[in-house]
């Protein structure tokens, strides 16, 4: 759905009071994954409603592959992260229980939903393979479904010698060549800019301004890039994959001074109308087989599993310098980011 809203998703951090306070104990300990009874019940339920913010291609692939693998009909509702989240919250408040599984690009949604009592805990079979404990909730209310890779996209027909770092984008040789998203509208841009301010201060952005960088709302400016309007974009590896699928000239540089992680989450809703099918779907999507579908869409999996195949023409994402932000610190810096950014680039 609306990228502008998907990208806005991060702004949630402004609202959410992030608490890591432990909730009540969740009853008896259960082995990870689903039991035979749950699998049977899932087949009887026959379908699952999957609210997702994945790209159209990835969401459609997921629906097809998961339906085949699980024998359950996967109904996809694909919207931007914030829209998906807003909708789930609205439905929860109104007592409508339409969705089973929710999958967005924004960790903060899951903090908020857990706090609101909208989620139920479920531990996937793959839990031991998660690369870091940061990638899931300690009480297993949610787990990271993917890690977006904030990076530099460029048009290889027009840029023969692409920049290797974020830092060098302020070099005058990139004047009139750059395009970015707005921190007020794009979650990806917000995270990228959070890190760049941390690394290089606001002078860096004054340099970008001197280079007459073009600023759109969303950072996904594939057309601006591919048409040659501006050949270098500060966005995300995720836009390169579908662009190449349409044979557009778009490539990614994973900057040496850091690739910016955007951790997305997945959870089973507490009042899921098909609770068993929901668990079966989440277990599948967080397995190596399910995660491969995400990885093919241009993201990093939170699983450290050698079975996952990354495209060989790019460095293995686990080899890049990954910058994972502390959501509390992003929330703290948000007012400053919004204000200073708007001063420099409008809005």
């Amino acid at each position, binding site marked *: *759905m*609306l*990228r*502008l*809203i998907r990208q*806005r*998703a991060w*702004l*949630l951090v*402004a*609202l959410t009071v992030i608490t890591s306070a432990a909730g009540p104990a969740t009853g008896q300990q259960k082995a990870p994954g689903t039991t035979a009874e749950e699998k049977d019940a899932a087949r009887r339920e026959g379908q699952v409603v999957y609210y997702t913010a994945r790209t*159209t291609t990835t969401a459609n692939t997921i629906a097809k592959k998961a339906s085949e693998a699980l024998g359950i009909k996967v109904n996809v*509702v*694909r*919207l*931007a992260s*914030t*829209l*998906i989240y*807003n*909708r789930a919250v*609205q439905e929860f408040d*109104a007592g409508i229980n339409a969705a089973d599984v929710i999958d967005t690009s924004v960790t903060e949604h899951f903090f908020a939903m857990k706090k609101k009592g909208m989620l139920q805990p479920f531990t996937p079979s793959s839990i031991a393979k998660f690369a870091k404990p940061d990638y899931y909730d300690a009480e297993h209310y949610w787990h990271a479904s993917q890690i977006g890779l904030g990076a530099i996209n460029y048009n290889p027909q027009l840029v023969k010698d692409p920049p290797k770092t974020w830092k060098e984008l302020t070099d005058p040789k990139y004047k009139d060549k750059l395009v970015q998203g*707005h921190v*007020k*509208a794009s979650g990806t841009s917000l995270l990228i800019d959070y890190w760049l301010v941390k690394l290089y201060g606001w002078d860096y952005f004054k340099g970008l301004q001197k280079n007459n960088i*073009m*600023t*759109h*709302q*969303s950072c*996904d*400016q*594939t*057309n*601006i890039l*591919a*048409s*040659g*309007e*501006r050949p270098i974009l500060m966005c995300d590896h995720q836009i390169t994959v579908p662009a190449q699928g*349409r*044979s*557009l000239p778009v490539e990614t540089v994973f900057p040496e001074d850091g690739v910016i992680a955007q951790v997305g989450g997945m959870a089973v809703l507490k009042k899921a109308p098909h609770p068993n099918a929901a668990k079966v779907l989440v277990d599948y999507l967080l397995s190596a087989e399910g995660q491969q579908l995400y990885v093919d869409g241009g993201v990093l999996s939170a699983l450290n599993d050698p079975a996952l195949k990354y495209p060989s023409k790019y460095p293995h994402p686990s080899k890049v310098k990954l910058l994972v932000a502390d959501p509390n610190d992003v929330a703290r810096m948000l007012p400053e980011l919004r204000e200073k950014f*708007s001063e420099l*680039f*409008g*809005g």
Partner: protein
Amino acid sequence: MRSKLLWGAVTVTLAVLVLLPLGWLVVKSVQTEAGLSLANYAAIGNQKSFRAATLNSLVFGLAASLIGLVLGAPMAWVVSRTNMPLRGLVRAGVLGAFVTPGFVLAVAWILLAGPNAGLLNRLWIAVTGASHGVLDVYTMTGLVLVSVASTFPLAFILVYNTLEMMSSDVEEAARVLGAGTARVTWTVTLPLALPAIVASVILMFLETIILYGVPAMIGVPARIYVLTTQLFSLFEWPPRVGLAAALSLPLLLVTAVLLVIQRRLLARRSFATNRGKGGRRRPIDLGPFRWLALAFCGVVLLFTLVLPYAVIVWASVSKVWVRALSSASFTLDHYRFVLFEFTSGSRSIWNSLLTGVIAATLGTLIAVIVAYLAERRIVRHAAFLGFLAMAPLVIPGMVFAVGLFAAYSQRPLVLYGTLWILMLAYLTKFLPFAYMSCHAAIQSVYPELEHAANVLGASRARALRDITAPMIKAGLLGGWVLIFIPAVKELSSSILLFTAPTTVIATAIIDLYQLPSWEGVAALSTILLILNGVVIAAGNRALGGNLLGRPGGGAA
């Protein structure tokens, strides 16, 4: 008794439609965490970005309305008064530009005049060998000119209608007294048309400052933020409805004042219009200058209609637009994509049709009842109903949407997230157009005919159904189209009120634009343009070619 009941029902309906959202707007603007206060207003006043946006909106609105006048008014004059060839075609072209949504024009001009990759710039570079293009759409000039393309028809329509309805007596008198063509035009026609000219500038100004699509697509990359783009940013998560309401109400006030001025000016026109056309007049012979006039109209329409439509249709059938120049290709893939694969594509068409049809039907029904009650003075205070029906005219779409959001996003009536809230927005926003159309139609029916039926034993309702209704069919149809057409292209209120399952064509186009799929945008826009064209052609045919050419239509 029955009439009173009807009056009551209609009054309540109108009050709920119009006053409830506005009331909520006021409430939200003064509601803060610390209780009732003006803190929201203070916050708006203190923030530099809002002050800058206000200034930008003023410059943007003034520039666009003055340029719109310079383009639209002379065209109206040559089409109405002179022997310029192809006058009918020019008029049809202007009406075509009139029903083209601003955001479609914005996309078209980004494709045409992007500073490096725009089609016209690439042609320029190829032809002249220059190192870079000459046009840059991402500037204030670009913003203004693209907006003018969607608003100048207002100047044309208002001035054209005034000229057409102007009695020829006064002009003839001047001529008999020996004044030449230029002198008559300058000293008689122009002063008589002056109220319409000023009114059209006001309307264009208002239409411009409430545009959202063009400023979002062209203004933002140009770092030019206006009131609507700032207003929209207040709805980014978390929505700050209080601030949005506090920003909206002054805008509403400005609009109301300007529209009151505009109505006063148009009311003065009545002495000149003198009950419709005052006989046929001889067209003014422009001599060789008629070709110059035609060239002027042609150039205006080339840039506002022909080029944008051409580039949109071309992009919609190109495999990959960014390579359309270097390797020609033809495909219907993008139509397949927006109709069958893109989740919100076909859904948006269905939603737009559904909300458009229901809003137009209910709106026309309400309009005709109110117009009937008001015109026949069946109940006391009927004039108040007329006022309520016209009131939405002063409410900018986005402002009204803020009110609707405040009114219907909380219990007991949660309409946010349903198609009803969009339908209500369209119905209310465009009710005045249907009302004007129905009112004019009912005015033209002699009440004696109904009285005759009553005398012969028919009830009032039966007289209305069997006598009046058939006679005002054209007015009803006109009213219906005047709600339907703007409803299916309405973006500025839809963008605040839609959710994924309730997306409409306008929001789906913005969605495709962000996806980003320029070809998909072009395909869905083409579908919208075809849809508009079909409805207008059908309506025009049913009305004998008079659709949108009537005085009431001028405000649409």
